[in-house]
């Protein structure tokens, strides 16, 4: 019983390594392989389904276990909230109309209404220990890479991978993610970086004397052209001004629920037209 007596390195391992490398390079350079891989991802659906069973049964049990009284109270609460939100929406519609009229006066293209789709979270953790969530909409639903994702609180993240029926969303708290933001109160522009799991977001490279303070709301600025402008992203929690350093240490807390809800919204922002760019962006494009 001698293992690998017949099949040494050249017959036992090398062919597999070679085929892996071929597969990886084919995936990198041949479009058809990418499409095939994203279609093959359907084999993951039963595995994801089984993995999501515990949390699904837990959620179902919670629904069963609530008493009529609790349900009635919840219903009352939701009805009240609906009323408040509707009242706010009326004002919003009025403002949107006014905004479009003013834009017409300025001869700028009116901002069309964005397309939105509700996607359900497949309650799984697609990559080991990473800050990504999986949703049940994929390239078959026109999901594209770099698509912004929001929930009731604000921006959740962006789509970083999509297969035919599922796509992977990287949360804004991930270390590799950055969101261009603007302070609502003062209009200061900055970039918000993810801090990793269980860590806060950081605003980096802001000069010591810039106007920013705790409880400031950061909304997306629309620069970078991934996230549409105006969506809430985070609240500043701590600002540390250090005389010895030229930049401030600023920490922020995300406003969205970061995939803890069962649903998220996928946004299809309307394409920015040349007339929508402000002059700064034009200058940047030319200088490149």
């Amino acid at each position, binding site marked *: *019983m001698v*293992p*690998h007596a017949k099949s040494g*390195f050249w017959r*036992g*391992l090398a062919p*597999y*390594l070679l*085929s*892996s*490398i*071929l*597969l*990886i390079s084919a*995936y*990198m350079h041949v479009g058809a*392989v990418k499409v095939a*891989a*994203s279609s*093959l*991802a359907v*084999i*993951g659906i039963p*595995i*994801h389904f*089984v*993995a*999501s069973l*515990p*949390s699904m049964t837990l959620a179902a049990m919670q629904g069963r276990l609530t008493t009529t009284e609790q349900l009635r109270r919840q219903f009352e609460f939701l009805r009240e909230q609906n009323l408040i939100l509707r009242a706010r929406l009326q004002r919003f519609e009025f403002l949107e109309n006014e905004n479009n009229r003013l834009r017409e006066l300025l001869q700028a293209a009116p901002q069309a209404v964005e397309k939105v789709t509700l996607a359900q979270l497949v*309650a*799984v*953790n*697609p*990559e*080991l*220990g*990473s800050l990504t969530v999986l949703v049940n909409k994929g390239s078959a639903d026109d999901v594209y890479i770099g698509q912004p994702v929001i929930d009731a609180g604000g921006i959740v993240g962006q789509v970083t*991978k*999509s*297969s035919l029926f*599922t*796509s*992977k969303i990287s949360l804004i708290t*991930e*270390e*590799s993610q950055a969101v261009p933001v603007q302070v609502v109160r003062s209009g200061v522009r900055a970039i918000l970086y993810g801090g*990793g*799991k*269980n860590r806060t977001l950081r605003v980096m490279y802001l000069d010591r004397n810039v106007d920013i303070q705790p409880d400031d709301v950061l909304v997306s600025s629309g620069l970078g052209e991934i996230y549409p402008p105006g969506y809430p992203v985070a609240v500043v929690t701590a600002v540390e001004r250090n005389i010895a350093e030229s930049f401030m240490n600023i920490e922020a807390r995300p406003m969205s629920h970061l*995939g*803890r809800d069962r649903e998220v919204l996928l946004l299809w922002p309307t394409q920015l037209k040349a007339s929508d760019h402000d002059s700064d962006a034009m200058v940047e494009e030319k200088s490149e």
Partner: protein
Amino acid sequence: MIQVDSASRRPWIPFLTLLAALILLVLPMQELPGGFVPDWVSLVLIYWALAFPVRMGVPIAWVTGLIVDIITLGIPGAHAFTKSVIVYITGSLALRIRAFPVWQQSVVVFLLLTLELASLVIIGGLTGEAITGMHRWTAVVVGALVWPLVYHVLRRSRHSSNLRGS
């Protein structure tokens, strides 16, 4: 050890445990602090490569790795590559590693998982999908620490299913 008949009663047990490991891999663990979820699939593959170096060899590791790549929407071939490598090493040294006490096996597992993550980082760097964060490395340590548990659970499953041979 004379075994005329190596056919076992339930030869599908290894595959069932691999499927369970795949499910554990994608199980939602949002509540746990980052980096406390080891790569169950690698651990299970290492166990079966130790138990049956020939039957549970590189081909099965390759296919399992490819399934991991596909269901996690990763680069197809990356995990297939790394899992083939660690299973090949485990299989070649199986007779020696099997003689170790469990804690020494943990050290071997630690080295194997480190090798796997290092190659994943290199592949990620070459393909532009860099692996970020320290939590992947703590997962390696956790993987080595839970090895005794994996070992005992899988050995029980193997004995209860009466699997023998290589």
